[in-house]
C-alpha cells in the first residue's frame, strides 16, 4: 500500500460518461476525493448516483472518461489486476446485497474474502485475525448482539448496518457508499455517517457517499457534489453549500 498524504487525490474521476441505449445517464462527470476526505453526492432519484458507483467499481462499463483509484486506472484493468484493485474498494450497496442464508457475522466475513486463502474460504475456516476484524466491525455498527442471526430475518436497517460492517471489515483504502442511510431512522443515520467520517479520518480513507438528505450532507461531508440528470451541477465545500444549490439539484 502506498502512503497517501491528505493532499493526494485518492479518487479521481475525469470526464466520465455512461449511456444506456440512447439515454445519457452520466454526462462528463469529473471530481476528486482526497484521502481522509468525505464527499457527498446529492441527487434526486434517477440522477445517476448508483450508475456512477457501478462504473467506478466496473460492475458497469462506462463509455468514456477516466477513473483513477490511487494508482489503479480502473477503466483499463482486467482479470487479476481488476480483482486486486477491487479488493481496495469497500462498496456499500443501496440494496445491501447480503447472502440471505448466512449469519450477520458470515456476511461481514465476506469483506475478508480477498485476503483469506481459497481453501480456508471453501472450508469456512477464517483465521482468528479476520474473525476479530469482522466482530469489531459488527460492534462498531452496533450489530454485535446479532452476530449469529441469519441475514434474511434482520430488519432493513439492521441489514444496512451489516452491509456497512462488511465494508469496514474489508479495510479498504476507498469506501463508496450508495445511500447507506436510506432505510435508517435519523438517529441511526447520524451514527452511521459519523462512523464513515471517523474511519475516513482515522485510516485516511477516501469516502464517497450518496445521499438524499441535504442536511446530512452538510453536517457530515467535507464537500458536496450535486448531480442532476447525470450532469454535475455543483461541487462545493459543505460549508459553502447554499439554498440555491439545493433547489437546482432537486428541482423538477
Amino acid at each position, binding site marked *: 500500500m502506498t502512503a497517501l498524504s491528505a493532499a493526494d487525490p485518492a479518487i479521481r474521476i475525469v470526464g466520465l460518461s455512461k449511456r444506456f441505449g440512447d439515454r445519457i445517464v452520466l454526462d462528463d462527470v469529473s471530481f476528486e476525493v482526497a484521502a481522509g476526505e468525505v464527499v457527498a453526492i446529492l441527487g434526486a432519484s434517477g440522477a445517476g448516483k448508483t450508475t456512477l458507483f457501478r462504473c467506478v467499481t466496473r460492475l458497469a462499463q462506462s463509455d468514456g472518461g477516466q477513473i483513477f483509484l490511487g494508482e489503479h486506472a480502473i477503466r483499463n484493468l482486467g482479470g487479476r489486476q481488476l*480483482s486486486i484493485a477491487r479488493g481496495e474498494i469497500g462498496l456499500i450497496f443501496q*440494496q445491501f446485497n447480503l447472502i440471505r442464508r448466512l449469519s450477520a457475522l458470515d456476511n461481514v466475513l*465476506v*469483506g475478508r*474474502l480477498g485476503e483469506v486463502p*481459497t481453501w480456508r474460504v*471453501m472450508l469456512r475456516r477464517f483465521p482468528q485475525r479476520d474473525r476479530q476484524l469482522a466482530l469489531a466491525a459488527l460492534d462498531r455498527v452496533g450489530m454485535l448482539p446479532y452476530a449469529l442471526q441469519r441475514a434474511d430475518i434482520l430488519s432493513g436497517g439492521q441489514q444496512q448496518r451489516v452491509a456497512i460492517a462488511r465494508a469496514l471489515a*474489508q479495510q479498504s483504502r476507498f469506501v463508496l457508499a450508495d445511500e447507506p442511510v436510506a432505510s435508517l431512522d435519523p438517529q441511526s443515520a447520524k451514527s452511521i455517517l459519523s462512523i464513515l467520517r471517523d474511519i475516513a479520518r482515522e485510516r485516511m480513507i477516501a469516502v464517497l457517499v450518496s445521499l438524499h438528505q441535504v442536511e446530512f450532507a452538510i453536517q457530515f461531508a467535507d464537500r458536496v457534489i450535486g448531480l442532476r440528470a447525470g450532469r454535475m451541477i455543483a461541487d462545493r465545500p459543505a460549508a459553502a453549500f447554499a439554498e440555491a444549490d439545493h433547489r437546482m439539484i432537486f428541482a423538477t
Partner: protein
Amino acid sequence: MRTGDAGVFYPDPARSWIAVAPVRFVATLLLVLLVYGFSIYFVDFDLGRLWSGLPKLAHWAAKAWPPDARELGVLIERAIETVAMAVVGTTIGVIIAAPCCILAARNITPSRLLYTPMRWFLNTLRGIDSFIFALLFVAAVGLGPFAGVLGIGLHSAGTIAKLWSEAIEAVEPGPLEAAALTGANRLKVISYALLPDILPNLTSITLYVWEFNVRSSTVLGVVGAGGIGQELKNSVDLLDFARLFTIILIILAMVTAIDQFSAWLRRRLV
C-alpha cells in the same frame, strides 16, 4: 371523453397490432387446432382397435390373479438393485454435472467461449434417454446393472447440470457482486456467496432426478441393463401374468415409497 383525476386525457400507450387481444386469441386457437390435427393424424388414433383388444387384456388380467409370490425374495432383491442403480447413477450424474453447470450458467461461467459448447453437450446428454445409453453400454461392458448405472449417469448428468445451471442463473446478482468486489476469486465467490443460498435448491433438484431415475431404472432391465425390469421382461416373454402382477405391485410400492420419501426430504430442505 373520459379523463383522469387531473382533467388530463391519457391516450393508451400504443401497442403493435399482434398484441391486441382478439387477434392474439384467434391466432392461438388456430395454432392449437393445427398441432392437434397433425398429432392425431400421425399417431393412427383408432378407438376401434382398442375395443377389439380389450378382451385379450381382460383375459390376461384374469390369469394374473392370484399374484404369484413364490419368488418374492428374488424379486425384492431385484427391486433393491433398481434403487441402488438409481443411487449410483444419480451420483455419477452429480459428479459430472458439478463442473459442467458452472460453465453452463451465464452469470458465473468463466468463459463465454465455452458456455455455448457446454450447453450443446449437456443438451445432447439430456436428449439421449438413459435407456438408449444403457443399450450402448450393454453392448460395450456386457449385461447387468453396471451398464444401466452408466446409462443413468450420463443422461442424468445432462439433466442435473441443466437444472442446476438454471437455478444458478436465477439467483440475484447482488450478493455475488458484493463478494467479487472484495477482490475474491471465482472459486471463493461461488463457494462462499453462491452455494449457501442455493444448496437447498440444488439438493432438491438432485432428489427429484433421483426419484425420476428410480422410475426409469425399472425399465432398463428390458435391454438387459439390470434391475427389476429384467424380471418383468422375462414374465412378459413367458406370458406368466401372475408373476408379472407381483412385479408390478412391487414396482408400485417401491416407486410410491421413494416418491414420498424424496418429497418429504425436499420439503424439509426449503
